[in-house]
């Protein structure tokens, strides 16, 4: 647990990774709420006679389905999965960034071992949770 927290601290010390995690989490959450009505969303977005403000208003209104079209439990795990997905993507980005940097500096083996350990700790419970 301590190691996981350390890895988190290391990654999220940089505000860019917080931004990546936040944006990806938001996108995944939006996708989850829009998923039942992707066809309708496409129909509305591609109708030229509808004002952009109305299109955006409709997209925004569908987000409210987290209250009406989800049980408390499913809303909870949808949000948790979205957050974990965001963290996962931020961690992957961090991993590749560091790997690239250290390879350039000739320290490939060291960072590979450190990073792989860190991401296993992050990813494995994530996957286990879903299974």
């Amino acid at each position, binding site marked *: 647990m301590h190691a996981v927290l350390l890895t988190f601290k290391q990654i999220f010390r940089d505000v860019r990774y917080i931004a990546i995690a936040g944006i990806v989490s938001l996108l995944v959450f939006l996708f989850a709420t829009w998923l*039942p009505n992707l066809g309708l969303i496409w129909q509305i977005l591609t109708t030229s006679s509808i004002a952009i403000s109305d299109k955006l208003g409709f997209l925004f209104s569908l987000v409210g*389905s987290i209250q009406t079209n989800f049980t408390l439990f499913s809303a909870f795990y949808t949000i948790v999965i979205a957050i974990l997905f965001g963290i996962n993507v931020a961690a992957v980005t961090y991993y590749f960034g560091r790997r690239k940097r250290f390879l350039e500096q000739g320290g490939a083996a060291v960072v590979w071992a450190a990073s792989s350990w860190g991401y296993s700790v992050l990813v494995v419970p994530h*996957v286990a949770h879903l299974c």
Partner: protein
Amino acid sequence: MIDSDENKHQEIQELESKLKSLKQQQSSGEIGNPYLIPGAIIMAGLFIAGALFFAQGGSSNIQTASVGGAVGSPTQQQPQAPPPANADSIKAVSSEDHILGDPAAPVKIVEFSDTECPFCKRFHSTLQQAVQEYDGQVAWVYRHFPLDQLHSKARREAAAAELAGELGGNDTFWEYLDRVFEITPSNDGLQLSQLVQIAQDVGLPTKPFQDLVDENDIRGGKFANHIEADYQDAIASGGSGTPYSVVVAANGKTFSLNGAQPYASVKAIIDLALAEK
């Protein structure tokens, strides 16, 4: 000074040879496949994306209907190359339908619903609000879409609502339906004997409802064909779960809405449909 430079040079050479050896080991797989971890991470991402998609079942909590698998359905055999489901294929609204609001309203919301679906119960009040707020502009058409595999009582409840309509007319049908949604705890939680009580509540004779309950026909008794026709209409028009709604504009343009969406979304679709001329 010269010794120091020589030492540094030697150290650099050693480090370079170590690095070369490490790279060789890495490329030969002796110290692990360099693509293993990134691959595992990407796989994990795909698992999560897949879990999200399938947890939603292509939808959020839309209860999945068994297409072509209705209990007692005369069309239980595997359909061969069915036509693609499309909201435009919906059966036209007619006087046979149960309509709340002005039947001549420019916008009609055809709702396919299951009385034992908790999201339909929630969405029922959303559509009540829509019909009230868009008085004269929106009509609500109710069609049955009982998901037998999830709610074995839904078809009999649909039959009871039809019976109420037959005995008391369109208004009584809606009154009966409102009461069913009000009372049921959803997910087959309603006792069938309560269908008789609801009939009494709305001022109908109880005997026909008692007979319906006693008959215990899971297809819906004499209303079986009507309910099945609604069910097939839902499938043909793209319904895969409940509640499923098709908003029909005055010019015939359709907007299909899946799930118990919030009132703001329903309102946005109604406004779009009203703008269609």
